[in-house]
């Protein structure tokens, strides 16, 4: 490990050389910045991973069953497990997706599940990301570069090779694909995760396309080359949000979508990865119900637990939240990327009161969670190891089977005492090692 740390600067230099960056908008201006990498990895033992693997597969399978149910029979609502209000009030629920069964019946092909590990070593799920979870490319390329910089580290430690992510992704895309080529659809280079779009296109041998490259004819999607010839598209790994995907179905003002795409999808002529409409399942409000879904659809006890969560929508929870707001973390269900997260302990009494009023007015808009005192991971700062909060985004791919990528994106806060680890908020990342024994 010492050797790896000694080469940290070289690794960061290589990351810069390969353009491993993310974009961020500040004051309406686009800035690209390097994603700070800490060479000290998060280490997950073999036994720990076996448990995580089981729990994550269980959770994602249940979420896929939930999505299929919600856009068809809605048995979970009929049976009273999920209140109707929660379904129809969710911003992620798209009536346009009603009755559509995606190829192979899979909705969430790539699930990014955020977890934290408490000080007693137990893992808690913080949130499910089933729309366009990003981040796998960072540990993927970091591992490649770490191996170059410090081969002996990887010779001396039994680490599961994580460089199969692109193969897993390609296999999954091919499994759900209609006849035709693979495409990664990007909103463009000024997207925060553009590096990832282009890197995954390279690694999966897919065409990286913008909407101008695609068109729909007779409910089939085509990619047009520079000589005017067209090739059928079988699967689109889209990296733009549902509402921008197809101006004929969703936002008519979208300039980055592909007109007619939803018709082609509905006709079963193209697979869209992840399926439109998944937002209903990764809504922070729906998160509360995931353990119930696992029991409902699989008849199993959840292997991995949610962080203790309260829904002010329920009277009992509402009372608890109001009484304990000062020690809870409150999340706006419609926000992402670390935004809309408020720690009661950081608020003045006036602000606490204002938040209380807002929750009273819009109880469905918020969830409240106990603050999990999750473990600190060591990071290197000015040659010293310092403890920082870190989470883990695990990636679960669903194709022929549901598979957990034996790695993940470990993000850490660079500020002492901060729980916010998002890159958009200045966080860094680490490689995640899974030990093979």
């Amino acid at each position: 490990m010492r050797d790896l740390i000694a080469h940290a600067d070289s690794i960061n230099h290589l990351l810069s050389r390969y353009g491993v960056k993310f974009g961020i908008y500040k004051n309406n201006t686009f800035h690209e910045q390097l994603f700070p990498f800490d060479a000290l990895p998060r280490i997950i033992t073999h036994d720990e991973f076996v448990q995580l693997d089981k729990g994550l597969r269980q959770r994602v399978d249940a979420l896929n069953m939930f999505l299929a149910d919600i856009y068809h029979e809605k048995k979970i609502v009929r049976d009273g497990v999920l209140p109707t209000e929660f379904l129809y009030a969710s911003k992620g629920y798209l009536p346009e997706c009603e009755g559509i069964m995606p190829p192979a019946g899979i909705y969430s092909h790539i699930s990014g599940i955020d977890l934290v590990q408490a000080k007693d070593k137990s893992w808690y799920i913080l949130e499910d990301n089933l729309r366009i979870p990003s981040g796998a490319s960072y540990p993927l390329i970091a591992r490649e570069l770490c191996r170059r910089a410090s081969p002996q580290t990887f010779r001396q430690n039994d680490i599961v090779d994580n460089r199969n992510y692109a193969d897993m992704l390609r296999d999954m895309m091919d499994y759900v694909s209609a006849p035709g080529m693979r495409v990664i659809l990007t909103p463009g280079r000024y997207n925060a995760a553009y590096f990832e779009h282009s890197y995954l296109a390279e690694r999966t041998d897919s065409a990286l396309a913008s909407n101008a490259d695609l068109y729909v004819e007779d409910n089939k999607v085509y990619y047009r080359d520079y000589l005017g010839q067209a090739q059928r598209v079988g699967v689109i790994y889209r990296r733009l949000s549902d509402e921008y995907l197809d101006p004929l179905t969703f936002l008519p003002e979208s300039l980055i979508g592909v007109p007619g795409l939803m018709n082609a999808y509905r006709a079963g002529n193209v697979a869209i990865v992840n399926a439109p409409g998944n937002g209903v399942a990764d809504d922070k409000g729906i998160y509360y119900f995931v353990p119930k879904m696992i029991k409902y659809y699989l008849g199993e006890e959840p292997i991995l637990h949610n962080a203790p969560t309260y829904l002010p929508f329920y009277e009992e929870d509402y009372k608890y939240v109001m009484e304990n707001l000062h020690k809870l973390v409150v999340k706006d269900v419609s926000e992402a990327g670390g935004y809309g997260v408020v720690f009661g302990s950081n608020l003045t009494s006036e602000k606490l009161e204002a938040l209380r009023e807002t929750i009273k007015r819009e109880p469905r808009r918020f969830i409240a969670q106990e603050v999990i005192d999750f473990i600190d991971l060591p990071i290197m700062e000015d040659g010293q190891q310092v403890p920082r909060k870190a989470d883990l985004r695990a990636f679960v791919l669903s194709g022929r089977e549901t598979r957990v990528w034996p790695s993940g994106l470990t993000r850490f806060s660079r500020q002492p005492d901060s729980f916010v680890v998002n890159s958009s908020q200045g966080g860094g990342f680490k490689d995640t090692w899974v030990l093979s024994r």
Partner: protein
Amino acid sequence: MGIISVEKSSRLIWLGRYTERAFTISRALSRYFDEMIDHDEYAYRGFLDCLGLPYIYGSRDAFIRTYIFDENDPNSLMSQLVRAMDNAIVMREELTSDTLCYVQMALDTLKQGREDSAPMLVLQQVVDDLFAFWGSADDNVANEDCRNLMKCGKYVERLDLYVRLGYPYREVEKETHKLLNRLNKVRFAHREQDAQKLLELTADEATYKANKQRIMTLLCTVLS
């Protein structure tokens, strides 16, 4: 990946043009730099005249600081590399990360060299990175159309700059043939007649010297 869209074909051509612009200008500047050291501190004006650029740089030091390193000057070397990167970054899956990184390295070198007291050494590194970019492109870019489009852009730009900067006829003739060779490998609607015309205008030194403006005009349209 194998299939090149209209937008990507344009990106590839402009990637070729901007990398070549940065490359040839970096090399051309060495001549003017040398003169500016202890012969003529305004030698850079000759360079600006060749490229038809205005005298907006008040002094030798301002020229070096601004023309080479200032991203806000649209004519600067830095701007050419930024544009090269703008075109390269959207082509990663065709270029490969291993090739793309040399454009990134050239740009990083120039950015880090802003405060360097020896700008020519910085430019030497930029030239090395761009050489490596083309070597890597030949080695790693699997799609032949992709390579041909980039090289069409590269040789159009090189020829244009050689004509503007007054390079010897033998150099222009050599680069004309390189361009024609590439044009023969891509399929543009009016390629044949443009190629023929270019050949006529560079047939010998006298014809070339009498037709520089026409050659530059032709180069503007040959890839449209």
